[in-house]
């Protein structure tokens, strides 16, 4: 058990690297837990320029509708390019260009106006929502009565419904799930970084040829040595997983409904096993501490970005999304992809992560044997 103990002792020596790393993580998670999850949106009065090329009754109804809650200016002496520039310079929130065949498009339910907005601003979403609400109602009016009745349309647009939000219902569960998923996503990044840095640095020292010479000359079989190393690393990995898992429970103890805890735990264990296998392969290739640290940061950050840990994967292009489906961290997130996920839904991703772990173990064993044969 000497090797087992020395590996654990080495981890303990890294405590001044590990403890701040864990504290930063939990600080961020706690802040997210306290301040996140209750996003509000308030509509505001927008400055809009409308170019009416149609001059029809329905286009006037649209202008009237927009003017009722915003500062809408109708102009016909302005080019598309100027409007784009005004939006870009934030002189106006947006512009609506109504084409001359506006009525036909509305009747057919086709895209009927061109909206110029700055997509980065919340006003963009507000203007698009309001215009599409008008077009939907106008289309219904045309279909129902064959012609547009401005008054009926206006009263339909002004109708409001009282909605009562119940925090104990599905919405609360979904919010809990979203928060826990965000925590678990970031926990995977932390676990990978922690294991790759600590195990990487430790093993790069342990695998130094001069130390290995002494260890191999000692009466300890290579199998026993490997088992002791693996056991010690797994123990530390499980400890890190438990810290992350119970950290999640601690932060969300009063909001656990809708969180697939068992799936998250399995996912954390699997990503820990995968990272150990990956690090084993890296350490079999090099004992240079700088290279090991460089690879650790490169791999964890790269995988985390590409797998949607930091940025929702839906924002990626099709190509990047397709690439992400081949990455282990993506499958980690898919193990707890929804609040009501079943084990059969997760089975594929679990299997892929297990396969990844086995593949990197085999690569590590091959490189490790090669290195020993050239070293000795």
């Amino acid at each position: 058990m000497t090797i087992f103990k020395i590996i654990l002792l080495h981890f303990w020596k890294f405590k001044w690297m590990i403890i701040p790393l864990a504290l930063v993580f939990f600080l961020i998670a706690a802040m997210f837990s306290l301040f996140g999850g209750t996003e509000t949106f308030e509509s505001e009065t927008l400055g809009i320029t409308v170019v009416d090329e149609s001059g029809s009754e329905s286009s006037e109804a649209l202008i009237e509708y927009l003017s009722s809650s915003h500062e809408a200016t109708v102009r016909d002496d302005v080019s598309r390019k100027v409007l784009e520039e005004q939006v870009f310079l934030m002189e106006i929130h947006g512009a609506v260009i109504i084409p001359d065949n506006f009525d036909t498009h509305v009747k057919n339910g086709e895209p009927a106006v061109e909206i110029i907005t700055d997509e980065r601003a919340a006003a963009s979403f507000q203007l698009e929502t309001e215009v599409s609400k008008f077009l939907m109602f106008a289309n219904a009016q045309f279909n129902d009565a064959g012609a547009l009745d401005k008054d009926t349309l206006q009263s339909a647009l002004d109708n409001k419904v009282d909605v009562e939000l119940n925090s104990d219902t599905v919405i609360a569960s979904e919010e809990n799930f979203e928060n826990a998923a965000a925590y678990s996503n970031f926990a995977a990044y932390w676990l990978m970084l922690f294991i790759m840095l600590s195990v990487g640095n430790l093993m790069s020292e342990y695998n130094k040829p001069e130390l290995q010479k002494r260890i191999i000359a000692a009466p300890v079989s290579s199998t026993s040595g490997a088992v002791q190393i693996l056991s010690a690393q797994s123990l530390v990995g499980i400890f890190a997983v438990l810290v992350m898992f119970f950290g999640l429970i601690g932060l969300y103890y009063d909001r656990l409904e809708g969180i697939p805890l068992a799936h998250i735990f399995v996912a954390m264990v699997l990503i820990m096993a995968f990272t150990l296998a990956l690090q084993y392969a890296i350490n079999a290739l090099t004992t240079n501490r700088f290279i090991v640290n460089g690879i650790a940061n490169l791999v964890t950050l790269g995988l985390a970005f590409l797998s949607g840990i930091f940025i929702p994967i839906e924002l990626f292009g099709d190509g990047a999304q397709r690439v992400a489906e081949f990455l282990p961290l993506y499958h980690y997130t898919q193990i707890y992809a929804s609040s009501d996920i079943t084990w059969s839904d997760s089975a594929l991703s679990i299997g892929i992560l297990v396969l990844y772990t086995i593949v990197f173990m085999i690569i590590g064993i091959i490189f490790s044997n090669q290195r020993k044969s050239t070293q000795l």
Partner: protein
Amino acid sequence: MIAMDKVVKRYKDVIALDHFSFRAGRNEIIGLLGPNGCGKTTAINCMLSLLKFDQGTIELFGDTVSPNNNKIKRRIGIVPQELAIFDKLNVVENIDFYCGLYITNKAERKQLVDEAIEFVGLEKYRKFVPKQLSGGLKRRLNIACGIAHKPEILFLDEPTVAVDAQSRNFILEGVKKMKDRGTTVVYTTHYLEEAEDLCDSFVIMDNGRNVANGTLDELQKSISTTESITVKFISGDDALTERLKQLPHVNQVVKTGDRYNIQFEKHHNNLANLIRFIEDHSLTYTEIASEQPSLSSIFLELTGKELRD
């Protein structure tokens, strides 16, 4: 204790050990000497089962060595030339780890670790990590890690390279103490004076071969080097040089200042003849010394090379 018989080790086209043989008995210090790349470390690695060899046999304690022969491994120790210590562990932890690879009993190990620390004089530095130790102290720690389990055969690979004089003396005294407590030491070094002072017998290696082996006396007798006598005369001149050359069995006379180095053929009562010559010519001298060939000159004669750092 150690028996290497016609061992051949090849690295592709390079022959590192060429039918290398040597034997060592219990409780002696054997100096394994040779220039860089002569195969010293390869020979040690083969004995430690760290390397597979192509031909020949190696026996330690009468048993054939193999990577899985833990019975043999348990009884040997190694102090490699490079510092084989963990940077993050302190003195006690480093020694305890290596000792733990041999000794599982915790109480026994603790006692052995304490003894090893005392043996190398690191009592004041028990909690120091290697980066806090000087080069010489690191070397001592490196040695302590190899001897804590009290091996019966110890391989010391250039343990005094790049250490200060004080630590070097400490290490050499330690090696002698190891011998006194019954350990067979295989010692490789570049420093021939150090080896001459320390070792009971020598194996001189060159190009992977055992060029000569034996005690210093045996080696001196085995080579054809002349007997060298140096005399410091009060007054001397070139004529004296010529007269000295007339002495029987003289090969060469070299005058350096007032010192005359006279090279005789061996085994001819040369010193007595020289003293008689001095008396007959009423010459006055302040020093006279007959020198046996040193390990350095033996090495030079056998390998045609000088052994340098």
